[in-house]
């Protein structure tokens, strides 16, 4: 088990993502309805909620892929609506995203995928470009021979890892992970959690992680926010959520599977 809480993490509670009153809908359906959320620097925030509640939609809204109807989003202290295109580019290189389906470029090998943002934003020598890409690929636990494979030749777990390597290519300040451990075997998922925790420690990442994986919530998340009915139902360390009397949260955290996860953790 990782003993990460004993490390000197500088916690001055700087807010890196501040979401206020965000409203998002499609057609006449409202998905998010006045949602408020803070993510602090250096933390791993677990984001939970029933399927279809809009976890991916919120992530995509923060990333600017889905238009919002109302509200403000600040990332690293800048209101996203006020950014000029060049400021936006500067901001975009400071976050990395792992999409729910991986979203690797299908025509490029894993290594080339990792190199895409590096080529775009950095001025690296060929040698460094190769070495850094290989380093990231190894850091996420892929074998070197995976580097020259195409995404269609990878297993589901390898796709997640490769996509994480690409998300980390620029040493971002913030990473968004949409269900990073879904589709992995439990051991693989555990390794992936540890990997995220290690990277968070070494690179000082802030991690926004959408997940359904109770083990991840128990082992690596510093704080958890739960989404329901378009709002945050509860947020805080896991104890706060365990104590909540919201019916969905009660069945989520006190169901059979949750008890098993809790037992294995203690």
């Amino acid at each position, binding site marked *: 088990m990782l003993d990460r809480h004993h490390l000197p993490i500088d916690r001055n509670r700087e807010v890196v993502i501040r979401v206020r009153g965000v409203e998002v809908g499609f057609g006449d359906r409202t998905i998010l309805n006045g949602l408020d959320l803070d993510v602090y620097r250096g933390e791993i925030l677990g984001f939970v909620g029933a399927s279809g509640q809009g976890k991916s939609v919120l992530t995509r809204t923060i990333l600017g892929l889905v238009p919002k109807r109302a509200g403000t989003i600040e990332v690293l202290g800048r209101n996203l609506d006020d950014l000029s295109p060049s400021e936006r580019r500067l901001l975009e290189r400071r976050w990395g995203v792992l999409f729910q389906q991986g979203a690797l470029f*299908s025509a490029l090998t894993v290594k080339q995928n990792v190199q895409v943002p590096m080529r775009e934003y950095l001025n690296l020598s060929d040698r460094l470009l190769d070495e850094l890409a290989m380093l990231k690929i190894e850091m996420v636990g892929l074998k070197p021979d995976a580097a020259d494979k195409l995404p269609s030749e990878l297993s589901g777990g390898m796709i997640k890892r490769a996509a994480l390597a690409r998300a980390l290519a620029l040493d971002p300040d913030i990473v968004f992970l949409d269900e990073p451990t879904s589709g992995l075997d439990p051991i693989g998922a555990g390794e992936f959690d540890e990997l995220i925790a290690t990277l968070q420690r070494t690179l000082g990442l802030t991690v926004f992680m959408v997940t359904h994986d109770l083990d991840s919530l128990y082992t690596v998340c510093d704080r958890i926010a739960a989404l329901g009915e378009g709002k945050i139902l509860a947020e805080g360390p896991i104890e706060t959520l365990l104590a909540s009397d919201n019916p969905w949260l009660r069945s989520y955290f006190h169901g059979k599977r949750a008890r098993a996860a809790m037992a294995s953790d203690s």
Partner: protein
Amino acid sequence: MAQSTLAQEPQVKIERSGDKVTARIVGHWTAEHAELVESFAAEIGAEADQHHVIFDLGEVQRLDTLGAWVLDRTRHELGERGQAADFANASPEQQILLDEVAYRGFQEQPKARHSKAMDFLVDVGKSMAGAGKDLVDGVAFLGELVSALIRVVVHPRRFRGTALVNQLEQIAYRSVPIIVLISFLVGCIVAQQGIFQLVRFGATPFVVDLIGILVLRELALLLTSIMVAGRSGSAFTAEIGSMKMREEIDALRVMGLDPIEVLIVPRILALVIGLPLLTFISSIAALSGGGVTAWLYGDVSPDVFLSRLREAVSMNTFLVGLMKAPFMALVIGIIATLEGLAVEGSAESLGRHVTSSVVKAIFMVIVLDGLFAMFFAAIRY
């Protein structure tokens, strides 16, 4: 924030004391300054001849994977030259990062080396083998298609009438306007050119024979086939290819549905029914175009045009054109299907196969038309 990172350029201060060289690493050793970081690291390597090198990280403000990698690489290279090199004053986070990136060489995957001439020969060989394989695949697929058709005939309930009608709409009905338009224009052009040449011999009315035979035997069919190959063949390859990419074809198969029966039979049947119909429409449009031009440009009145047309063309001129159409449809359909099924995971592969589906189909349509011309000449039809 971005401004402040740019301001903090990396620096290195090298100090010598006795047989020790201390390299004080200062500022932001991050990917933004990759070039500087690399050149400073090389400088440390060069300065540190035969000394014990200490990397003092006490004044580093930011270190990322790139910085840590380059530093550790330098340390490793010094070690290989037999010099001792160590880090000092690294914060716990920096130490974790340095451990995490710990330098290791990445061997290049060996790349085979070829000469240009060799590559050329290999390419020629491959494309010949590819052409042969295409032919074999085509024949094999024709067999599968026929057996699927027989199954459908034996169990008519498995026939997908709705899909067929839908495909007929897509392939035939929706391409009527464009085919009418281009056929009409080509008819006009051929007539105009014909009149232009024939008027010198005072043989203007023979333009009717020219148009009638050319359009009915060859032009209408070729125009239609090429148009359909470009319009429907490509769509067909893209549909099948993207279904293949997303494992939809496999999903059909594991549900016990035969993809050929479900997806391909309706499309190819629609092509085989639609192409002769379109050819007929195209013939009429091209003849009308020719007629209008002959009237306006060559003073051949519609009455004269029609009566000459009846003398010039016989039923078999018309049938020759129409008879070829189903074969063209089959060729277009088979090529489009095979290319669609050959798509692999990537979007690029999809694009490549759509292109080659259209190119191969047009090529084969023309080759086949040539073969038919020889055949009909031989049997004097």
